[in-house]
């Protein structure tokens, strides 16, 4: 069983729990080779800012969180950005302790992981 494609409905009717991760790649676009998870694509928007574009039937994003895993300890933190329902894009950025966006070098242990609860049907 592919654990990465579980669609768990524990958050209620018409709600799906999606999760995934990607590797930043300094000032370059993250490589899709390092995506984990399904139903999204990643793009680098600008320094330290990434877009997560959900696919398929996502109508709304009700919960989102992201966390940063680093090979070496550093004052870097994941921070959410805006959600745009029309394009199904959630932004996520990496900031330092002053709130300034920062790029992260590519490393197997430099990973942004995230989870989302999305609505894919009518509200209840």
């Amino acid at each position, binding site marked *: *069983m*592919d654990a990465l*494609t*579980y*669609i*768990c*409905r*524990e*958050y*209620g009717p018409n*709600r*799906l*729990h999606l999760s995934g991760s990607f590797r930043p790649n300094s000032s370059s676009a993250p490589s899709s080779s390092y995506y984990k998870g*399904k*139903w999204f694509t990643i793009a680098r928007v600008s320094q*330290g*800012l990434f877009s997560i574009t959900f*696919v*398929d*039937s*996502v109508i*709304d*994003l*009700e*919960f*989102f*969180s*992201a966390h940063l895993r680093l090979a070496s300890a550093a*004052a870097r*933190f994941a*921070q*959410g*950005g*805006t*959600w745009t329902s029309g394009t199904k894009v*959630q932004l996520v*950025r990496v*900031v330092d*302790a*002053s*709130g*300034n*966006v920062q790029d992260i070098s590519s490393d197997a242990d430099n990973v942004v992981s995230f989870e989302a*609860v999305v609505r*894919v049907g009518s509200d209840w």
Partner: protein
Amino acid sequence: MTLFDSPRVKEMQCDFPGEHRVHGSFVAPTQGAAAKAFKALVTLGVSHELDTVVEAKTAGAAGNAITVALTNDATNAKAFINFGTAGCGKLNTIMEFKTAGVAGNLWKVNVVPGSGGAEGVNIEEDVTNKILTIMYETAVSTVTNVETAIGTTTNFQVKTGGTGANVLAAATDLLEQSPLAGGTVSSSISRTGTAFIIHYTATVTTVAHVEALIAALAGADDIMDVKTGGTGTNTLVANTAFAATSLAGGADATVATTYKGKGFTVSYVAAGEYLVTFKDKFTALKEVEVFACLATAADLKVQTGAFDLTAKTLEIHSMTHAGVATDFTANAGDRINLKAIFSNSTGG
């Protein structure tokens, strides 16, 4: 192919038995002044003399529980004069103004010897100058004669009869413009819990009287105030009365109004502190996570605080990375995300 149609999707129930999840996100409520509940009384009752606006003394939704009723049932005191203590030697009657209220206090009384009417007593009511003059025939007129004469007046009556056989004499029974006193408007206000009743007298009590009663509330009664004064000289009539009516419009400090998800509400507590109130009660909080989404990169993060199982509340603190409490802005792009996993089983 949609997400649902994919053959790679394996739907499953991830909850453990007795587990419940709450998730969502919200635009952080901003600090807002709580509003006081109030009520314009002018529209209540049949007639509308009482044009005062009352309000709860303290801001907050609790003020909406205050009710006000207006009843025409006050007992007012009548002005009177005790001739004996006022200076008469034989005339020991107590006479009162027929109408309760302060109007009788404006009257003065003369008791003088002079030409008499029946049984030597004559009474003159000077309504313009508000002077009552009792003229008696010295050494002839009795207290009974005077009291009988009082009974013939328009505005006065015997309150307490004196010694009827006493004979008045010029040497002992002489008063010059002695005032009546003790006439009061005893409109009052009573409170049971949050229910106020204003007791008034039709055609006597004025708006100013009512407002004075409210303004004088003290101690535990001091939970209501005059928000906007009315026309003080307006006199209440019978149809001014109205049944208990609730104040409205009271509100607590601003609560979040833009939510995604269900099962919780959020209110502003203080700088950088929000309070989540879950709608359902569970036996334990197993896991909770909060996460900040900001339209523009900033030095701001969120952190969970105290959880109160009984009150079903969870604190969320927003702060800089250095830990300085900082408010979110009420920007649609700035959201706090919340996920909580509860146990509703004592089995964990």
